[in-house]
């Protein structure tokens, strides 16, 4: 092939030369070029190596269906593999290189695979290496895994950078009445017509330029300009460089906009790509049609491309793909290509498989040599230098003479791009007259127009677009005049179905799916292996599985399978198209949800204050909470032990804002609480709090917390941090579906209040120094489980309950969130006067384990109220959620795992959370229980734990258990004790 740039013509900007690098070599193109066009203009014939056989590949198309020119673009942390050179816009400084080749695509040692190609058919690797005696037997797969590692290195595509993606991406949302996909003649006409009817229209086009097929036509500039002018005046919103990759329910469409992929030095404020979700009331798909290859021997040689691609390179980029050009096809669309090539100065021969091609006067006048009843039988040369011809009829070809050429342009017919409407569930139907799949004109608010609907002529496509717009407007309730529809087809002379060319008994390497090196022999092998379904064919051969999604090869594969089966194509069926239509970068899917914004961070009002005090933070759901406050030189262990010990001996302050908080309000609030909690709430006095357990319907514990009665009709409920949203949703569900007659409103007030626990024997002194009226927190005014609403100094409104999670005399104080730091500025100096401290989650955990207080670690969705040792809180005198099913025999068994405390037999030993509790004489299987919490107890001076074990404490009083930790290879003998390991009578907290 001697491709070259013509001195005139094209839509490129010749005033802007563009330097780029290909495989380390500096080359030049023009602004407006695609990378493929620029490579072609520089006569780069081999630009890639094939997936399996490492065969040389060139540029085979001009669009998203490209199977050959897959390259790597960019370098360093911006290395992007498997980019179709045909869709990559050229820009100054672009760096591109070949892939899947060593040392380079022009000379690749991996090409040795091709020599053994006949021994490497579909399924070869699995059949040969899986279960290969004596390496593998039974269910072992070790040898195969070893082989697979080597095979994967020998076959494949490019490799992405392993460095973090330096670019950013974003999501966006768009709404419109009519979404038009594709800005070819049909799409633009549809958009204009819909806009003229007053509809809000969004037109998206994957290419940088609008025009679709018009961009490849030699005489369409004026009509394109006219269409674009009308489009600009219509008010249609236009998005170019934007691919509609999927259609979903209720008019939703997924788009990817390539914002800066064509820019040398993009504005750092711009995302590289945007992932758009469009919600359209009607959708018109004018996504065009893709020209098919034909399977014949060596049909993958560099120099062979589709006919329309050749024309596109000539007319859009002013690149003549060869000097001696053969054009081979089976339909009318090749004729205009031949005339354009001849007009550009090439020596052109047109091969047509059909015996009759209609009036050929214009072709002959243009100097085109015509051979009817002729097709390419085999391509010759590492890069194309000649072809052997076949004469006759499809199915009865005879080898004919050789013909020298440097470019072969192929058209095996056209496949409408029906992918998007197929995403919605429309089944493509085979249209034998046009040898292609088509879908119904309308399906669930989606309409096809133009060649996507099987309409082949430009003017008919425009009419088809207008018709679709009228129908869409009608569906939206507009009164419109009827625009006539357009029939499928448009050839002057009918197409002759042609999928493979070969003569009887001739060996051939004819590719069906070029990207995955699936040949026609592979399809027939699949048939011989007994695969009769197209879905099996796909999985056995990998036909259609590559990044092109079978755009080039699926129909040929179906046709060959049908032939092997002796059936028609419709009887074989077609595989289901699924999104995305073209690959979507993971970065675009993630949008801004990456790095520190992978998930939103939830900060308490005391967040910055805690950091100022030296907190080391940890995640608690989405919350960031203080883990511990290490003093200089302290380890985490030293810090939490000190914090827990200080709290028990003096006073400690802890940010408890993350606890869920729900306002329960209304005349029926008391009745509501009485129904959802296991224990009685009907007589809870105003100014008192009560610990409560709520169950699920099935009798399993859902959550626990305290609920404070603020007034006759107003309660303040706290939940665990992790279950805050779940409990609120549950309460809403109950009110809206089961008890709509109850006049109760529940509202999350988790964000309204900043909370601090003040715990320890000195807690009252600390608090009394901070409240507006000291006596408000006296033992009389605020006894255990008492609640007051008061004010801190400075007039900060505050609600306080005397409740304890640590087991010490303790208070929880809540102030409106914006006053949170001010509250801490009052409390902490007072605590410091008593040599108190701040404590974090680790010390909080230590103290609650010492006391045997349960959290989400214990209430894990499997535990009954009796298992948790709280059975006495289940009232026998009232009905509550879960009251019936908690009494199922299975939940009442006495040998169920029950909450226990755990001491190491050797008090210097430790054990881990997650360890299994086993009988000492049977350390196997799932054991008799498990450990949910473990810590060093400053109070007891040794390691302790909480967990569950069958039968509870009573069953293990004289037995030694073993904390077995097979994952960490540790076994510790333990004693099972009461979960209330410190101050079991509660004297301290009752104070």
């Amino acid at each position: 092939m001697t491709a070259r740039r013509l001195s005139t013509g094209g839509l490129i900007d010749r005033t802007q030369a563009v330097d780029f690098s290909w495989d380390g070599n500096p080359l030049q193109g023009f602004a407006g070029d695609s990378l493929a066009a620029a490579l072609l203009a520089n006569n780069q014939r081999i630009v890639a190596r094939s997936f399996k056989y490492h065969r040389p590949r060139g540029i085979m198309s001009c669009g998203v269906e490209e199977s050959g020119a897959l390259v790597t673009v960019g370098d360093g942390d911006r290395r992007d593999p498997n980019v179709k050179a045909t869709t990559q816009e050229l820009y100054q400084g672009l760096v591109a290189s070949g892939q899947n080749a060593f040392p380079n695509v022009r000379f690749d040692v991996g090409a040795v695979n091709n020599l053994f190609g006949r021994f490497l058919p579909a399924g070869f690797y699995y059949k040969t290496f899986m279960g290969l005696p004596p390496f593998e037997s039974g269910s072992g797969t070790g040898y195969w895994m070893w082989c697979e590692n080597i095979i994967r290195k020998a076959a494949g595509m490019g490799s992405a950078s392993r460095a973090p993606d330096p670019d950013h991406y974003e999501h966006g949302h768009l709404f419109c009445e009519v979404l038009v996909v594709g800005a070819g003649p049909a799409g633009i006409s549809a958009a204009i017509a819909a806009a003229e009817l007053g509809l809000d229209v969004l037109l998206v086009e994957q290419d940088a330029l609008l025009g679709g097929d018009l961009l490849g036509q030699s005489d369409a500039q004026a009509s394109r300009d006219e269409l674009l002018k009308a489009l600009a005046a219509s008010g249609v919103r236009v998005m170019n460089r934007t691919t509609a990759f999927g259609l979903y329910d209720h008019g939703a469409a997924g788009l990817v906009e390539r914002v800066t992929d064509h820019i040398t030095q993009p504005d750092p404020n711009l995302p590289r790509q945007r992932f758009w979700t469009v919600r359209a009331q009607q959708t018109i798909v004018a996504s065009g049609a893709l020209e098919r290859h034909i399977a014949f021997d060596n049909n993958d040689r560099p120099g062979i491309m589709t006919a329309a691609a050749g024309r596109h390179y000539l007319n859009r980029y002013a690149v003549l793909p060869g000097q001696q050009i053969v054009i081979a096809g089976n339909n009318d669309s090749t004729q205009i290509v031949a005339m354009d090539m001849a007009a550009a100065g090439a020596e052109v021969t047109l091969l047509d498989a059909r015996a009759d091609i209609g009036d050929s006067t214009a072709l002959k006048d243009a100097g085109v040599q015509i051979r009817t009843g002729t097709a390419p039988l085999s391509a010759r040369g590492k890069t194309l230098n000649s072809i052997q011809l076949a004469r006759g009829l499809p199915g009865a070809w005879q080898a004919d003479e050789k013909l020298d050429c440097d470019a072969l342009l192929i058209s095996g017919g056209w496949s409408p791009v029906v992918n998007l409407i197929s995403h919605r569930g429309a089944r493509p139907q085979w249209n034998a007259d046009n040898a292609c799949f088509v879908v119904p004109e309308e399906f669930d608010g989606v309409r096809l127009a133009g060649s996507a609907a099987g309409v082949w002529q430009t003017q008919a496509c425009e009419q088809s677009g207008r018709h679709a717009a009228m129908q869409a407007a009608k569906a939206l309730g507009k009164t419109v005049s009827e625009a006539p529809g357009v029939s499928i087809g448009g050839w002057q002379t009918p197409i002759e179905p042609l999928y493979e060319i070969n003569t009887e008994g001739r060996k051939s390497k004819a590719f069906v799916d070029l990207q995955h090196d699936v040949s026609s022999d592979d399809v027939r092998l699949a048939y011989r292996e007994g695969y009769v379904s197209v879905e099996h064919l796909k999985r056995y051969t990998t036909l259609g599985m590559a990044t092109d999604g079978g755009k080039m090869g699926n129909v040929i594969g179906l046709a060959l399978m049908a032939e092997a089966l002796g059936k028609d194509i419709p009887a074989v069926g077609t595989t289901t198209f699924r999104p995305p239509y073209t690959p979507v970068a993971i970065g675009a899917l993630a949008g801004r949800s990456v790095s520190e914004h992978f998930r939103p961070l939830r900060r308490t009002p005391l967040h910055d204050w805690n950091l100022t005090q030296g907190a080391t933070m940890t995640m608690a759901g989405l919350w960031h909470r203080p883990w511990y406050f290490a003093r200089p030189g302290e380890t985490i262990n030293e810090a939490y032990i000190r914090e827990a010990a200080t709290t028990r001996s003096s006073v400690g302050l802890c940010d408890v804002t993350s606890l869920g908080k729900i306002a329960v309000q209304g005349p029926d609030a008391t009745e509501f609480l009485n129904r959802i909690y296991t224990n009685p709430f009907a007589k809870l006095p105003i100014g008192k709090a009560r610990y409560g357990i709520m169950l699920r319907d099935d009798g399993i514990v859902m959550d626990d917390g305290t609920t404070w009665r603020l007034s006759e009709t107003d309660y303040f409920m706290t939940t665990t941090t992790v279950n805050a949203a779940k409990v609120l949703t549950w309460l809403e569900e109950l009110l809206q579906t089961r008890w709509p007659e109850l006049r109760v409103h529940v509202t999350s007030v988790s964000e309204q209040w900043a909370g601090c626990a003040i715990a320890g024997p000195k807690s009252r002194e600390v608090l009394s120094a901070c409240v507006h009226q000291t006596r408000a927190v006296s033992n009389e005014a605020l006894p255990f489980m008492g609640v007051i609403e008061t004010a801190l100094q400075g007039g900060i409104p505050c609600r306080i309950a005397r409740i304890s999670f640590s087991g010490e005399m303790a208070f929880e104080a809540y102030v409106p969130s914006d006053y949170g730091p001010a509250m801490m500025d009052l409390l902490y100096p007072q605590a410091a006067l008593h040599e108190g401290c701040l404590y974090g989650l680790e010390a909080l955990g230590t103290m609650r384990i010492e006391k045997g207080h349960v959290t989400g670690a214990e209430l894990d969705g499997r535990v009954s109220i009796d298992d948790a040792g709280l059975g006495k809180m289940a009232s026998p005198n009232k009905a509550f959620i879960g009251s019936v099913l908690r009494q199922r025999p299975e939940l009442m068994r006495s040998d169920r795992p029950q909450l226990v405390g755990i001491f190491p037999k050797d008090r210097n030993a430790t054990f881990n959370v997650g360890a299994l509790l086993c009988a000492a004489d049977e350390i196997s299987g799932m054991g008799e229980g498990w450990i949910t919490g473990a810590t060093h107890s400053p109070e007891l001076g040794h390691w302790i734990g909480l967990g569950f074990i069958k039968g509870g404490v009573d069953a293990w009083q004289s037995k030694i258990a073993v904390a077995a930790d097979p994952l960490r290879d540790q076994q510790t003998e333990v004693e099972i004790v009461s979960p209330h390991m410190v101050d079991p009578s509660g004297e301290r907290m009752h104070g």
Partner: protein
Amino acid sequence: MANRLSALAGHYSPGRFGAEGQAGVHLSVVADLRLHQVAAWPDSLPAVGQLLANSIGQAAKPGPGCAISSEQGAVLRIEPLKFWLLNLDPPTIEAEQGCSLDLSHSRTCVHIDGPQAQEFLGRLLPLDLRAAAFPDNRVASSALHHVGVTLWHRGGGYDLFIPRGFAVSIWEVLHATALQFGLEIS
């Protein structure tokens, strides 16, 4: 009385950021938000709605997803039975009629305006903000970067109510997204 400390205090600074030229997006943090929720019962909804409308000198309560406002304050209908009152204390509501709740500290309110405010919000919210679908005084609950938020189209701009704990995280996303339009923070 101690001063209120916004969730965003110390996390932003006024100025001009991002793309040059005219700023497409203006962000400002609403100081000392006053926000009360009033919830009615199904049978008391007309009376409570009327009471709230009267409290700001308006004739009728807002419909679902709508707001009414005056110099005295604003009433947003955020749920079929729930209203938000902005910048005024709620009238006395008897328990038989409904209940009120102070939520002033539960949300951080960011006001968004500028010539590209609508386009900017389209990058963040799955809401149809076209003029016909979301005119002035429309209210919607939605999700922004996984967080439930409330948006009020007010006077050509938008008030975005963010749960306080997520305010910094959401602010960072707002800031990063706005840079491409040219951002002015006041």
